[in-house]
């Protein structure tokens, strides 16, 4: 195939022109507030615009070259762009560094994609590839677990990292809980955060008003949330699909509004403060012990360190998340778990087989709610302050996004998606306002390249023939 450079250049120039026409008003001018007297004025950002247009020109040229099958020039172009992005070169804004570098990354990926995919498919076909793939899926989870257990002992475990790790694990747990409802039972629940709120307020109120400890309230909070799940689910679960989504969305908002407006009970928008943290065998994590209590550093005879509390919280949430995971894995292999999945596939067929759809869905809903309740009471104990603001719809949306992007029903997928969706925006804080753009870009990329989620393979809950024997003709 002949490579027609003039037409490629023309095409890239046209793209750059379109970008310029669109960008001149959006990027080229910026209104600035110059004080109350003179009002608004313009600031010109033509240098920014120029860099962006050049990037787009080069990027389009790269795409044309990819289409013409010129792999290595494209990769070289991409690497050059990454180099420019990462260099100390004085570009007009920090964001442009990222923009250029990300463009380069995309070009490199596009350049090697057909080759990488071809090699990977070929490698997956060979016996070694098959064995490696199976070992990979089998051991990857364990590897992650070992890494998670050892994390606090690594030098990377400063306060910022541990904070982020606790946050990610909270979402992993919520994702695993919602995975039962959405991934296994196929019930689209847009109000999952309501049960998280029920758990959080259960602990906050019982501890501050009645002096109950974290470990006493934890199961109570789970039961409370499960009860709410049953009460809500009973009338609602005969709805299907979109209708269920709308009703659960409404329920989530109702819970938040009740928490906001029932001031006598919940202290309204001011929230509940000074919630006690979790204790270790009755000892508290603080520098000076409160009356009649012992601090952990006294009990263990170590010097006080603010990080200990964080590490303790980290292990609690790790344990809670693992319990959620083990429970779900176990349930999947039981008749009820298989009935959940069957309901997701075809409710009519389930009814014809004598499965009670309402009860089966209700168990999924209640169990999912219970884990949200556990996570909620952990959240309250960690934050020591909660208000209705923490339980807005966006939380439900993020948890749902984690489940969907991870691959419905996949446990490891949830972990990866939580790291991506919670971790990335935190790591990209340098990007300022553009971090949500990066977040959106990541989501779009996942949806384009993995439309069924990061990990879409379903492992059978039971096998007649041992795995890897081919499974018939």
């Amino acid at each position, binding site marked *: 195939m002949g490579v027609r450079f003039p037409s490629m250049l023309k095409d890239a120039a046209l793209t750059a022109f379109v970008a310029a026409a669109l960008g001149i008003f959006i990027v080229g001018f910026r209104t600035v507030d110059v004080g109350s007297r003179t009002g608004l004025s313009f600031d010109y950002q033509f240098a920014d615009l120029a860099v962006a247009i050049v990037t787009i020109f080069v990027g389009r040229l790269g795409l044309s070259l990819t289409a013409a099958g010129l792999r290595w020039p494209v990769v070289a172009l991409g690497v050059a762009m990454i180099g420019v992005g990462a260099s100390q070169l004085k570009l007009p804004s920090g964001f442009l560094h990222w923009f250029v570098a990300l463009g380069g990354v995309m070009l490199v990926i596009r350049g090697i994609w057909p080759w990488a995919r071809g090699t990977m498919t070929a490698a997956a076909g060979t016996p070694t590839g098959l064995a490696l793939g199976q070992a990979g899926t089998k051991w990857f989870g364990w590897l992650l677990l070992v890494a998670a257990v050892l994390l606090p002992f690594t030098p990377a475990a400063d306060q910022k990292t541990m904070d982020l790790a606790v946050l990610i694990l909270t979402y992993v747990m919520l994702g695993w809980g919602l995975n039962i409802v959405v991934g296994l039972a196929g019930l689209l629940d847009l109000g999952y955060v309501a049960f998280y709120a029920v758990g959080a307020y259960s602990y906050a109120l019982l501890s501050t008003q009645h002096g109950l400890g974290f470990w006493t309230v934890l199961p109570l909070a789970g039961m409370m949330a499960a009860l709410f799940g049953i009460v809500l689910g009973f009338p609602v679960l005969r709805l299907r699909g979109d209708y269920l989504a709308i009703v659960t969305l409404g329920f989530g908002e109702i819970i938040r509004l009740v928490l906001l407006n029932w001031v006598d009970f919940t202290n309204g928008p001011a929230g509940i403060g000074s919630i006690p943290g979790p204790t270790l065998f009755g000892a508290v994590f603080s520098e000076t012990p409160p009356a009649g209590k012992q601090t952990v550093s006294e009990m263990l005879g170590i010097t006080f360190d603010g990080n200990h509390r964080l590490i303790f919280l980290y292990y609690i949430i790790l344990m809670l998340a693992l319990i959620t995971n083990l429970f779900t894995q176990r349930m999947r292999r039981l*008749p*009820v778990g*298989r009935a959940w999945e069957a309901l997701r*596939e*075809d409710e009519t*067929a389930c009814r*014809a087989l004598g*499965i009670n759809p309402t009860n089966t869905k209700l168990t999924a809903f209640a169990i999912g709610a219970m884990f949200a309740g556990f996570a909620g009471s952990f959240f309250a104990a960690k934050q020591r302050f909660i208000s209705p603001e923490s339980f807005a719809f966006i939380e439900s949306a993020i948890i749902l996004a984690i489940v969907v992007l991870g691959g419905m029903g996949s446990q490891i997928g949830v972990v990866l998606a939580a790291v991506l969706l919670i971790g990335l925006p935190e790591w990209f804080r340098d990007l300022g306002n553009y971090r949500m753009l990066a977040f959106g870009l990541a989501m779009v990329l996942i949806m384009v390249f993995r439309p069924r989620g990061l990990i879409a393979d379903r492992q059978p809950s039971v096998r*007649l023939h041992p795995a890897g024997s081919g499974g018939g003709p």
Partner: protein
Amino acid sequence: MSEPLIEIEHLTMRFGGLLAVDDVSFAARSREITAIIGPNGAGKTTVFNCITGFYKPTIGRLTLSGGEREYLLERMLGHEIGQRAKVARTFQNIRLFSGMTVLENLLVAQHNKLMRASGWSVYGLLGLRRFARAEEAAIGLARAWLERIDLLGDADRPAGELPYGAQRRLEIARAMCTEPRLLCLDEPAAGLNPRESAELNQLLVSIRDVDGTGVLLIEHDMSVVMNISNHIVVLDYGRKIAEGAPAEIQSNPAVIRAYLGTDEEGLDG
């Protein structure tokens, strides 16, 4: 003649102004295949949907005699008909759990039995031996059915990947795994080639003779209907126009008229 397994009396189903089934009465017996035939839109599937609880009949009584007691199907909830009265069905357009494996499909069919054995999941979560035994037995039953429908090698494949004919057989096996008294099959031979059709005949005959299940069959393929049914009910425009043994039906003038049109219509058309 044995007692009827299911007795349908004065079944009427009205959708707004449309009378889909009009005062139909017939009976089906255990160890017999009863076929319901009729032109398109005659109300055959509506009768099935009434029997299996997907519709509540406007008028009529559906009595299923199950051993000691009788079940009035029109009063039961949809899933109870499968669970208690033990009526199983297949669908005109195949409804397998296509993302789940063949074996899992057959285990889901044994849900109620396994739920009891797993102590509503408690014994199962604790990993008690009694649940493990029940599950082994359930897998044994599934394996026996997979051998009968010749899908043993495909047990761990997703059901949706199977060829069409195999999906049809699997759906019948799945219904049989509920250990039903009455099996309702909605056009099981649709889309099958002649060889598969013949295999289906054998399977249905063995279900009738070996398992002793009563079979109620909607079918357009006359090679299936006339070869294996013991009793045929003919519907047209929601009404029963004939009933009897295959030989009687083949020579019944009302049936011939319903299928081929009257002489005058034939000339006009």
